[in-house]
């Protein structure tokens, strides 16, 4: 098992290095720089500023300097927001994204699994059809449409919730709905299809024959296998949601990481682009890593075979 996890960890580090390198050179290949602006600043001032940020050096040197700083966990200063370090920007905006994201994930998992289970148990009955109909809608309507509709109807037309900001607990309602619609739909469908398969398998029949209560069969034997695909999906989904949805944060005007993601690129804020990309990658890979560990507990076959499981 240690070998299994060690191998995974090694892969993560290599992937991060490749990612950082690729991002660095791709980013520099895009025309323009942080100080390209409509009202041209005199070339002498610009040269002076470029030199200050080390942008006058050859690309290779810039890369080496960046990587050296990166190994010391120094992400540098933002080139757009002066006097602000990239680490601080990420820390502050991630706090918002993670808070909203965590609520959305909890809601998604509870509601999604519940809907999926109900659909599987009442297979081909009304509740199944209704749940799956909802799921199809949830998957096919993009969250910026849902977000804008929610904002208009529940914020402006019937001002039950605020249209922007996170001042009180109620302010979390609309962003949470907008964020969790897609994951709920996805989880519900995943749960339903696996549960349908699981509920007709031999060991469930055995459990029934042993005379276990339907309740115990469902929750102790069914769900454990039934949620395996959900666990797989949950890793990347968590990474995705807690790092901030660009669209939802924009609609509800939340100071999260998502906005910085897009803005840093249009600003050519090199240090911030690198910082956020690496941060996102770390979160994503950490989520996968944790998923792998969770697998070991949910699926004992992995522990036995040292990670080589044919799925």
């Amino acid at each position, binding site marked *: 098992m240690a070998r299994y996890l060690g191998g995974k960890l090694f892969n993560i580090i290599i992937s991060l290095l490749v990612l950082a390198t690729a991002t660095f050179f791709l980013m520099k290949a895009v025309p*323009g720089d942080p100080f390209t602006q409509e009202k041209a600043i005199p070339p002498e001032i610009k040269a002076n500023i470029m030199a*200050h940020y080390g942008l006058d050096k050859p690309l290779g040197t810039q890369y080496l300097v960046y990587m050296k700083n990166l190994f010391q966990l120094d992400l540098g200063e933002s080139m757009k927001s002066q006097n602000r370090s990239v680490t601080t920007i990420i820390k502050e905006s991630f706090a918002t994204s993670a808070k909203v994201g965590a609520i959305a994930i909890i*809601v998604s998992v509870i509601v999604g699994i519940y809907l999926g289970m109900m659909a599987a148990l009442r297979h081909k009955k009304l509740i199944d059809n209704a749940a799956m109909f*909802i799921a199809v809608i949830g998957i096919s309507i993009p969250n910026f449409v849902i977000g804008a509709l929610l904002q208009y109807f529940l914020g402006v037309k019937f001002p039950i919730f605020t249209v922007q900001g996170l001042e009180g*607990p109620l302010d979390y309602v609309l962003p949470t709905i907008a964020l969790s619609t897609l994951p709920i739909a996805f989880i519900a469908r995943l749960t339903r299809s696996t549960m349908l398969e699981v509920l007709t398998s031999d060991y469930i029949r055995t459990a029934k024959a042993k005379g276990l209560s339907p309740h115990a069969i469902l929750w102790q034997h069914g769900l454990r296998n039934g949620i395996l695909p959900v666990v797989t999906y949950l890793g990347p989904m968590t990474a995705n949601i807690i790092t901030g949805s660009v669209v939802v944060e924009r609609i509800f005007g939340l100071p999260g990481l998502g906005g910085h993601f897009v803005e840093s690129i249009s600003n050519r804020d090199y240090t911030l682009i690198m910082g956020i990309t690496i941060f996102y990658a770390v979160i994503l890979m950490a989520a996968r890593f944790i998923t792998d560990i969770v697998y070991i507990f949910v699926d004992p076959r992995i522990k036995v075979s040292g990670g080589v499981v044919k799925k």
Partner: protein
Amino acid sequence: MKKKLLVLVSLMLVLTGVLSACGKSGSGADQEFRMNLTTEPPSLDVSQAQDQVSFTVLTGLFEGLTRLDATGKVVPGVAEKWEVSDDSKKYTFHLRSDAKWSNGDPVTAQDFEYSWKRTLDPNLNPPAPYAYQLYYIKNGAKYNTKDGVTDAAQLGVKAIDEKTLEVELENPTPYFLNLTAFFTLYPIHKSAQTNANWAAEAKDYISNGPFKMSAWKHGDSLELVPNENYWAKDEIKLSKVKFSMVADANTELSMYQTGKLDWTGKPTGDIPVEQLDKFRKENNKELQIKGVASTYYYNFNNEKKPFNNVKVRKALSMAINRTDIVEKVTKAGQVPAYGFVSTGIFGVAGEYRSEVKDDYFKEDVAEAKKLLAEGLQEEGMTEMPEFTLSFNEGLHKTVAEAIANMWKENLGVNVKLEVQEWKVFLKNRQSLNYDIARAGWGADYNDPMTFIDMFTTGGGNNDIGFKNTEYDALVKEAYATNDQKARVDAMAKAEKILIGDNQAIMPIYYYTSAQLIKPYVKNYSVDFSGNLDYSRITIEK
């Protein structure tokens, strides 16, 4: 869908309902003014700021030697009086004795000297991008660009004593007293000497204006409260100014409609264009539309065939219908432009554009066809080659489509439209890598020169490849004299060369700015270029 929403809403209500008692704070004190900045101010350090958002915040926080009143007239600020030498190159400012910083320290002439020298310092960390706003000061450019002057003592700014500031200029600059109201010329408190990050957080921030910063939640909101040490604190009625930083124009509008903002739209926000049209049609009383001293135009690449030919340029410019563009496409009350200097800029006695009419050319399709044929012949071409019109994202696309359509219909020429990402676009435009490109220019200060000196040969903002010695000479002439009539005459002649004789660019319209303002907001002032001074606002509910 409905059912699902219902389920979710009720679920969320259960989750959060318990806590809802301690819900959101109300609209707060009566004298609170709320507007949207759209983004986090990139820098509130006087030396580093260079954009509209930072400028809007700084307007409340600082006061320069002079101030502009609601009519745009220069009135005393920190300086209560000043003398100007006969050659208009030396100013002596006398600071008022009761001017104080938000921490109680007196505002001294040294604070101004320090600020200006700091901004011009080529070794500032990082160097100030807007330092060229101080190039009017004697040796300012030379010191900042390390061109022979390395000693800051040689700069034309000197504190004679605590309350007297002496400023020497490179050239007589009739609008210098307007510049001293501009944010790059604000003073900086001495604490910046030991704390380079003085402008990063609310707790370290020291300012000398009507307000001081009470909170700055980065990326979210920024709050100002009155500065009790401000010398004219009796004029300040607001108890709080709250800026939000919401990027989406639709959300901003929703906030205004639900009473979370008192002001939406320019200078730092935006009203979605389709909504704006709706408000105009229903004659919304809260909607204000005003000229903003900016011109929307197209760059011709004067170095590239066939746009190097004046007849071709004239033909293209005469073949479009500007009135249709402003009425059917942009729809925000813009004014068709036939000159370069926008409306709202001072001339000799009144507005320049009223004194110098922009009748340099007329739209005329028949004449345009003739000119195009002649021009192409001169270039040895039989027909207009397909060319590209490039522009950045946003509304510019609909304008470009309309113009391409007019060219196609009126001249039978084919134009390819190309939308480019902002910085890619700027890069291409600045390196003359285009045929025709969209452009816009807003006034930095209230004088035609802010437009005219742009197209001198080799000028930093001359991105059309225009070279004209006569034009350069006129600009120089206007720079050298102190006589406003002679200056305006020279600049008007230059404009005629640029547009009338050469049609080096294609003017399209003079910008307007639109905002929705709640009826209870009184005593705001919006200057010629659309900047908002909110410091004297009163809320009369």
